[in-house]
């Protein structure tokens, strides 16, 4: 174990003081602001550029990305982000193009959008795609709005959306945001949807079933045909949460499984970087009969010219400004070109092989609920560790950080006790998987106190999240107001970036 993350006591940038060296064009004449809206105070520091760059470079060293190490975060598909995609996304022909330019000025962008839509259709077996949604959850919301518009157009009042209990939290949240009531169905003994419970839940009120396949346990729903028939026979739509599409490309498709609507997570399956939380992109694909409901504008082709078509009377309208996260779309487009149809199938082959291999390496050491074959991910239970040594899944996760790997997703799905959800992805070698397996096994054997006190070699020790929720300091302004009796203390010795006494600004005993 040789991992040591950088650990600096850094001030907030708002606590730094200095002089700006920014040069801007001179103001050629004075301007006039309505007196009632004129600002008098603005408490943000002037700083020289090099100090700002050093501050954020220090911060970057206190962060952990895919380029730092293995990232087996279940359901997040943290595969290597290829650099050619970043290069292309940073071209001026991407960045310096305004979304409201006349169509004649953006033929390159429009063609890229058009072709990416066609590629995603080919991968998913869908007929039409909209690239507008900004993230997977927004894709779900868009899909739900489409389902609602479809049923309304048919004169049907269907208010219920069914989700399995193993679904991502965004599924029920998105359905609710679109105005649906959420009905939850349990998981059966095989780790798939309990089909009897599903049959009982499906009624003439059912608008759609939202499901991810393979599911969050990494198990392929073998009853998918029955499930689809059950929902369709009752007049409902089948919604495919594409978060786990990385498992099955070229082996099956949402279209082949008879889904009507699908969203893609381009920042998962198509290798675009996740940016520490975003941006993502969540395109939505549909079958022909749902195409009229897709968001506007649609990108259309007439011979060699591309246009934006706003004249779609049945469209749900807009879910975000403009046409989607274009810089993310460019990366995904490049990735699909690079892989090709054959390469994408190999992606899924390797992702599934890596997952099953790692699971096999870990099987004797950890409980593995459900015996089925796994696809791209699997879920371990740390229940035995908890019962025998008082070591919880959270402790295991924190201890793994000391090995220089990201922790798996923990406590999800909720139906597994002390869950550790592991998704290795296709871009990792056998050696990396072996090292991870050894690390995880060693944690299970270790002195329990060492694990409970972990992490030991990250920038900070175990972070007190309860304290954060109790104090609710959400900005420097909030901090200043909280400490208003003690403002002078905030400003003293406020030169330089490092600050030995930063911690004192919040009373450690508080």
């Amino acid at each position: 174990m040789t991992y040591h993350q950088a650990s600096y006591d850094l001030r907030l940038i708002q606590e730094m003081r200095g002089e700006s060296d920014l040069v801007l064009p001179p103001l050629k004449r004075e301007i006039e602001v309505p007196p009632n809206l004129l600002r008098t105070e603005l408490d943000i520091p002037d700083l020289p550029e090099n100090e700002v760059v050093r501050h954020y470079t220090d911060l970057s060293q206190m962060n952990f990305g895919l380029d730092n190490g293995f990232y087996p975060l279940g359901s997040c598909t943290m595969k290597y982000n290829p650099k050619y995609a970043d290069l292309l996304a940073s071209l001026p022909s991407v960045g310096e193009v305004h979304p409201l330019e006349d169509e004649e000025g953006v033929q390159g962008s429009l063609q890229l959008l058009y072709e990416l839509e066609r590629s995603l259709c080919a991968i998913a077996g869908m007929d039409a795609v909209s690239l507008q949604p900004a993230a997977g959850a927004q894709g779900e919301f868009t899909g739900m709005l489409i389902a609602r518009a479809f049923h309304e157009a048919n004169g049907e009042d269907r208010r219920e959306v069914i989700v399995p209990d193993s679904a991502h939290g965004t599924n029920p949240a998105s359905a609710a945001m679109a105005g649906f009531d959420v009905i939850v169905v349990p998981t059966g003994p095989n780790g798939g949807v309990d089909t009897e419970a599903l049959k009982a839940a499906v009624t003439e009120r059912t608008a759609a079933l939202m499901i991810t396949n393979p599911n969050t346990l990494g198990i392929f729903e073998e009853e998918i045909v029955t499930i689809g028939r059950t929902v369709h026979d009752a007049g409902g739509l089948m919604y495919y949460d594409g978060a786990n599409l990385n498992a099955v490309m070229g082996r099956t498709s949402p279209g082949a499984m008879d889904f009507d609507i699908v969203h893609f997570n381009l920042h998962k399956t198509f290798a675009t970087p996740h940016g520490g939380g975003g941006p993502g992109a969540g395109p939505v694909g549909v079958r022909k009969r749902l195409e009229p409901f897709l968001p506007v504008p649609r990108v259309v082709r007439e011979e060699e010219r591309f246009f934006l078509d706003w004249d779609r009377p049945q469209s749900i309208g807009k879910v975000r400004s403009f046409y989607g996260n274009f810089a993310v779309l460019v990366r995904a487009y490049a990735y699909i070109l690079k892989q090709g149809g054959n390469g994408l199938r190999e992606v899924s082959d390797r992702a599934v092989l890596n997952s099953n291999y790692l699971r096999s390496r870990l099987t004797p050491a950890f409980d593995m609920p459900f015996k089925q074959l796994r696809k791209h991910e699997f879920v371990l239970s740390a229940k035995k560790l908890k019962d025998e040594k008082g070591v919880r899944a959270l402790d295991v996760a924190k201890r793994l950080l000391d090995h220089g790997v990201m922790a798996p997703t923990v406590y999800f799905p909720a139906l597994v006790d002390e869950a550790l959800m592991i998704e290795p992805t296709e871009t990792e070698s056998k050696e990396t998987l072996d090292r991870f397996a050894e690390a995880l096994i060693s944690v299970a054997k270790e002195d329990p106190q060492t694990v409970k006190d972990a992490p030991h070699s990250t920038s900070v020790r175990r972070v007190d999240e309860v304290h954060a929720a109790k104090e609710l300091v959400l900005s420097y302004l909030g901090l200043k107001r909280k400490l208003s009796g003690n403002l002078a203390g905030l400003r003293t010795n406020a030169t330089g970036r490092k600050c030995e006494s930063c911690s004192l600004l919040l009373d450690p005993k508080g």
Partner: protein
Amino acid sequence: MAVDERMLKELGVLSVDELFSDIPASVRIAGIPLPNGMSEMEVVRTVRSLLDRNVTAADHPCFLGGGVYHHFIPAAVSAIVSRSEFQTSYTPYQAEISQGMLQALFEYQSYIAELTGMEAVNSSNYDASTALGEAANMCARINERSKFLVPEVLSAGKRGVLHNYVRGTGMQVVEYGFDPLTGELDMEDLRSKVDGDVSGIYVEVPNFLGVIDRNATEIKKEFPDALLVVGVDPISLGILKAPGDYGADIVIGEGQSLGSPMNFGGPLLGMFGCRQEHVRKMPGRVIGMTRDLAGRRAFAMTLQTREQHIRREKATSNICTNEALMAVAAAVYLGIVGRTGLRSLAKLNMERARATMDALCQVKGFECPALSSFHFNEFTVRTPIRPEKLSRVLMRKGIVGGLPLARHVPSMGDCMLFAATEMTTDEDIGKLVSALEGVL
């Protein structure tokens, strides 16, 4: 990429096909109907040449705004946000190994808090239009009333997105009018629409037509029972009052101006802040300051019980992935620009718009400005030929913009919206003027 035989052996299978035996035969496919892959050099060549057909603001004068602007981005901003420790990380679920991202996002929240006067700021929404939709729903959660008032002067994007975002809460969106001479909101009309069912009132400063609406400061005084939601341009806050100082309960805005490229409209940065008392009703991720085991200052995601992964269908929003990297860009940008720079930039934007306006006023046939008011960095012009046609004519002369208004504010369908920023040079303005002179 060959499959590692050693792994197949460990699993006791002969080929990867066996690992897919759980997929029923009836739903299997033979492959993906796309061409085979290519080399990196071919990919770069192909994509680059496709995009080379775009007309960029790097090479052409750009007078388009309407929510996205061609601003100066210090090279240092791109250098920081392309550091892979930030760019290739996931959401900072494990706080101990993610302090860099967490502190950077806390600093972003702090900058936006100072600019807007809102103590509680989330670490981003997708864009300003979705932030508006979320704000309307948040108003409904706070006071459980059913109407949300918005200006008639609004981008089509915001209007459309808002319509969809209130589907769940069932909130009724009602528009109030504007003064056709000044472009400012019509207080009479607003008064006639405020009743006991009004949950929130939305106003933009500057508004979609670039007008610095003097009535904004009067709304909370006159309608203290309704929540006030203010939409801002963050650059303008270098010189304009923080909405918190005139009673705002929620402030939203488009943060693209703070260090992110236009990117053909995405990714953008939805700014979202509120008064601390309402924070439990707020959508999106929030970073809080706390301490570690050893008592050192540390940061963590907080108030997660509002969010979808815990609260599921009862969450304050479905948002999960957001625009975190753009928020970091905004923090770096504001770090470099600082107080002095932001004030100068706000003034420069106004001055450049004024210079553009004065030059356009000299062109025969154009009614300029169409509205008599204080403008930030945009203004409207009534054009002698159809704006849509003029837009294409200008594009063919190598000029990007202005924006035809018909889709956004139908009553001003004979007008165009022109934007200027600190990037707009006298030479750009000269090119625009001679292009317009050639039109008639």
